[in-house]
């Protein structure tokens, strides 16, 4: 649509000139952001996209769907409306992100072909002229085109159609050329003969880490996140990414973390270039260690935390910390394993069960109202007679959090059955007032 026509349709339309150079710069900035947070292989896909190779990185973000969701949310928070898709090939992901109805799409490997076939021709990253030409010939979807013999199409439109089809369906590879920022500390090693054995890779990791640590020391930095990229002879890339809880410049520790992950690398026909980059680094200064002759110093566990975090994922390593709330499930929060120690603990002398059920499970009971413990209860199909009980411990709803909790009450009882097993039961409601809860009984935890 021409600007004059748009202005005629919408009075007072504000017109801004397109600025492809600034767009491109903005895209590069976004790519750098994604490089530091999501995966080591990120490239701008102009004019309007980012391409990220997340192979082996998604589990660190809680799975593919969760990763996409958080990514889109973070973009939205900074004012960028984004659509995201994960698929086997760059071509398929490019098409899914732009032409599927959902804002977030995770395409399973088996579904890639079917998904692509149903999309319009424009999804193939062909130029406008070719698409118009193909439409004139009666092609509507990618599936129509895929079923045609290639030779006549190539004769008429050139080799581009065949290449794009093969790229989208994964017949030929399409390497991503990752962006790099000049400020990053980077060391590389080019091999005359491609290497492939795990021992050889481990040896060169040691050499690269030594060189990187020297460079970091010169700049007074410590690495928080390292990427090791392997360029293979078949023009594809493999990578290892490790994160550290605190800035580290110790070659032994860094090499250990990288070597732990060697088994995830597939060298294929050989590796010709290894690049080690400190993607995130922080200022790190040598500190005087305080040693006391009286008390033995607390051993440093940060290296163990790093090893475990890189093995199971950083979000699976945590400490619990008290939260000021009487509602049991709200009284704990997770903090990072190495966050500063507060010395805080849970207040109150009421015993708490070692096992807390994720959701309170309804139980059948018989109990005298309003404040007697149950005489018996049936949980998971087994009926238990209550021999002894303690309670009630009344916990009121937190009305400052939700309006619905204005009048709700939970009465907790500790009960012991005939075999000595102890359970934590509660009645939702105070047994007198209708508005205090459903007056049903639930089992919430198991005592020792």
């Amino acid at each position, binding site marked *: 649509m021409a600007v004059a026509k748009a202005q005629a349709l919408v009075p007072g339309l504000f017109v801004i000139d397109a600025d492809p150079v600034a767009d491109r710069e903005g895209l590069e900035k976004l790519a750098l952001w994604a490089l530091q947070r999501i995966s080591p292989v990120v490239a701008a896909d102009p004019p309007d996209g980012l391409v990220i190779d997340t192979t082996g990185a998604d589990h660190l973000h809680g799975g593919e769907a969760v990763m996409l969701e958080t990514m889109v949310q973070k973009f939205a928070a900074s004012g960028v409306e984004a659509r995201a898709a994960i698929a086997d090939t760059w071509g398929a992901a490019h098409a899914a992100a732009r032409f599927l109805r959902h804002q977030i799409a995770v395409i399973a490997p088996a579904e890639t072909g079917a998904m692509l076939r149903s999309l319009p021709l424009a999804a193939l990253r062909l130029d406008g002229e070719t698409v118009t030409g193909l439409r004139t010939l009666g092609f509507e979807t990618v599936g129509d085109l895929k079923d045609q013999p290639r030779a006549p199409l190539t004769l008429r439109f050139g080799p581009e159609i065949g290449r794009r089809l093969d790229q989208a369906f994964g017949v030929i590879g399409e390497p991503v050329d990752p962006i790099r920022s000049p400020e990053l500390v980077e060391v590389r090693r080019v091999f005359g003969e491609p290497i492939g054995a795990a021992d050889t890779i481990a040896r060169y990791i040691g050499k690269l880490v030594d060189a990187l640590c020297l460079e970091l020391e010169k700049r007074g930095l410590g690495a928080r996140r390292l990427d090791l990229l392997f360029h293979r002879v078949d023009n594809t890339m493999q990578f290892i990414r490790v994160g550290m809880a605190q800035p580290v410049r110790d070659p032994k520790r860094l090499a250990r973390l990288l070597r732990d992950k060697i088994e995830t690398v597939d060298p294929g026909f050989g590796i010709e270039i290894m690049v080690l980059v400190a993607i995130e680094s922080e200022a790190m200064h040598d500190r005087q260690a305080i040693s006391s002759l009286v008390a033995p110093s607390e051993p440093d566990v940060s290296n163990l935390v790093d090893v475990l975090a890189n093995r199971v994922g950083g979000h699976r390593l945590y400490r*619990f910390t008290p939260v000021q709330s009487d509602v049991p499930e709200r009284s704990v929060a997770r903090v990072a394993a190495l966050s500063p120690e507060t010395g805080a603990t849970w207040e109150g002398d009421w015993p708490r069960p070692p096992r807390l059920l*994720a959701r309170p499970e309804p139980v059948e009971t018989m109990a005298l109202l309003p404040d007697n413990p149950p005489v018996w209860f049936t949980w998971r199909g087994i009926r238990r007679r209550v021999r002894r009980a303690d309670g009630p411990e009344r916990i009121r709803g937190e009305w400052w959090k939700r309006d619905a909790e204005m009048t709700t009450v939970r009465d907790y009882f500790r009960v*012991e059955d005939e075999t000595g097993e102890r359970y934590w039961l509660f009645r939702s409601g105070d047994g007198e007032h209708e508005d205090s809860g459903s007056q049903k009984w639930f089992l919430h935890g198991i005592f020792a």
Partner: protein
Amino acid sequence: MADRAANPVIAQLQERIAHLESGAGRVREVLPFGLPDMDRRLPGGGLGLGCLHEIAGGGNGAVDGTAAAMFAAGIAARTRGKVLWIVTRTDLFAPALAQAGLNPDRVIHVEAGDEKALLACFEEGLRHGGLGAVVAEAAHLSMTASRRLQLAAEGSDTIGLAVRRWRRQTEAGDFGQPTASVTRWRVSVLPTAPLPVPGLGRARWLVELIRCRSGESADFEVEACDAKGCIALPSKVADRPPQKEVGRRIASA
């Protein structure tokens, strides 16, 4: 133990065996329970520090593992330094650990996802050497895996506590399989004695020492961990002799 050591030949032999068993030939540190009746049954007078110990629950405890976890928490609370607590699924309620003497600042929790990762993290924790104790809630523990863990613990003098916990009651028979752990415990809950007032007293456990390397099995009836992680003997056993003596003194006066 004491009377056997009185014979110099046997003492000499024991020393030689001990020298063969621990590579460096050094004296292993122990963590006593503080109950003479229990500590007497354990070689060295307590739980060995650079060793792997297995703890399982009895009855329903094989599935929920509450008593076993609290027993482990009590032992871990009495060590020095940080504690690594590894689970595959998380249903642990941290305030209960704090009530057994494990301050939340001391415990690093790891959610390992599967059994294989759990054992790898367990071994990594034991090898590190800077931790006070490593607790892992494992369902399966093979001879090979436990041997690796035991060697890792020996190298670093960190106490390893494997809380055995299964998905189903029927799988608990797995506890009969041999492993390389130094001691093997089963903790089951017992009905408590009625109080003179309505309410619940301190929980009571039946602690069975099923296997103990260079020691004999035994079982004890104890009261659950207090706020410092110490277990106690039930009052009827612990208090009887002094009570009697006091009574006699009063009577004779």
